[in-house]
């Protein structure tokens, strides 16, 4: 199957997790077109931007949102160096 034919990656789940620095963080799991899963971690500000951009009020609402929403949120994160890496399951 060509990459173009694969379904678009979507947010599979978002979970609150403890951060190394003592703040709560949001771990967002992305399911790729080939079924692979990988995660990115957002701080509180980026998580808020994600909810706002997706126009949802809670974490459950993030399920199924296109991965591009994350890209926009991360682009807006000054100084953040969070990248999306493809995983193969």
């Amino acid at each position, binding site marked *: 199957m060509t990459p173009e034919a694969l379904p678009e990656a979507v947010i599979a789940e978002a979970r609150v997790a403890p*951060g190394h*620095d003592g703040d709560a963080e949001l771990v967002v799991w992305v399911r790729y077109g080939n079924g692979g899963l990988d995660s990115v971690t957002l701080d*509180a500000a980026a998580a808020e931007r994600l909810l706002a951009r997706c126009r949802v009020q809670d974490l459950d609402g993030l399920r199924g949102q296109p991965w591009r929403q994350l890209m926009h949120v991360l682009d807006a994160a000054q*100084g953040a160096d969070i990248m999306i*890496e493809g995983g193969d399951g």
Partner: protein
Amino acid sequence: MDLIIRRGRIVDGSGLPAFVGDIGIADGRIQRVGGRIEATGAREIDATGLVVAPGFIDPHTHFDVQLLWDGQARPALEHGVTTVVPGNCSLSLAPLKAEHRPRLVGMFQQIEEMPDAAFDGAFAWTWEDFGGYLDALRGKLGVNVAPLVGHSVIRLWVMGDAATERAANTEELQAMQQLLRACLAAGAVGLSTSFVDVDEKLMPVPSRYAHAEELEALAAVLGEFGRMLQVVPEFYNTDITLARVDQLAELSMRYGIPTTFSPLFDSAATPDNVPRVMARVHEQMARGARVWPQVQTRPIDISFTFDQASLLFAVLPSWYMTMRLPREQKRAALQDPAHLERLLADAEPGGDPSRWARVRVRGGVSDASLVGQTLGEIAAARGSTPARVMIELSLENDLGACFLAAKLGHDDIDRVGRLLADPMVHVGASDGGAHIQSFATYGDTGYLFDAFVRQGGHLSLEAAVKKITADPAQIWGLPDRGLLHAGYAADLTLFDPERIGRDEEVMAHDMPEGGMRYVRHGKGIDTVIVGGAVAWSAAEGYTEARTGAVVHG
């Protein structure tokens, strides 16, 4: 003999079984270990019932600034730590040109949360070069210091403002190599770098602008000295961390250097992170690379106030929406009876108060007697519920009441215990001296014995001692440290194996000009000896001994 320790249970750091005997010390060195010493010492300590171990080594601290006015690195010393490694995460206080001091202060304040007063009058900036910083420490030290030099400050020295704008050119690379060479010759035990840290404006620190070629050039200089490369990888993403493990392995093999990365911690949100990273570490170690993951012993606590929208509330939509309101609207919503009832119904479904009952008040309240109490305890006293009390306290204190949800991550004793017992795991990442206004970074060594020797049984007493003495000394190439052997430096910690642990986190105002930080005091430590002199004891507290040394790699 200057000092004889009698009848102690000697755990010598090697991992071999404990044995009972005497230890003789003279001229700052261990002279004899084991058996009965017939001679009389100028001072003698009866260690009956106590473990006598090498002093503990903490390889990941940010005591760089504090050491300038507190050469004992309080309270690390009272936890049995006799050697600290500052200068981690790409930041050290030298080499640093005078014109760059304000920029570095900003970076340090972001990481250490050190108040302005600490930089304004608590010490004099008498140095620019690395050797000058070490000279400023010498004579003041009650603890040994094995300092790293930071990649960010090396960049700043050579490139100035361009350090946070672009990659280095060939001339700048050569200048950085020269500068690193000088720092290592002056006594740095290695180089630290970071792919994660930010400054006070949340902009990347200088090391993050380096290309791979720059790190390679600096690793080549480390190879001339056989010194350590410490790295903060993108620990929030497993795949990138794996790539960094591979990168470090290549540098280690090519230049014959040890490398270490931190932090690596376990979380229920990313349960495959540790297994995947450790599998790659084992693979690379089997090839002959030296890539040591640093793992902290303590669980991760989360603190929060109602002033900010902590993600802790994201699992409760009504709460999270309320917390994200502008301040005055938030106050109004919390005082609205109908809205309050909705919040309480979500927070304590079916009247179940368990979710918030164990959360503690850690500060920011006018009634100081509440600090340290759980919301469950306060609720019981008030005839209320934990969630309602949390809201009441926040409103009573202008949303400044600060709460602590303990053990939310890296808290599965069995998973963490098995990880710590892995021979490829380096106990570290304490961050001692950092995050001082967020949480206490002290007592990880005591917690190791409490949680993973006594409670979990994942390590023997001897193995746990080795993890924080001989292992770090060997990994970091610290000569004459980490073992109780004749001729070694006389750094020793005497402790009660049934009591050693960490005390509760408390607020202290012992920073310059009364600045606040969180600390934990030691538990079960009896005596700490640095360079042959008693530096701290349960009976005397901190002593006047300043026998700490700058430990060269």
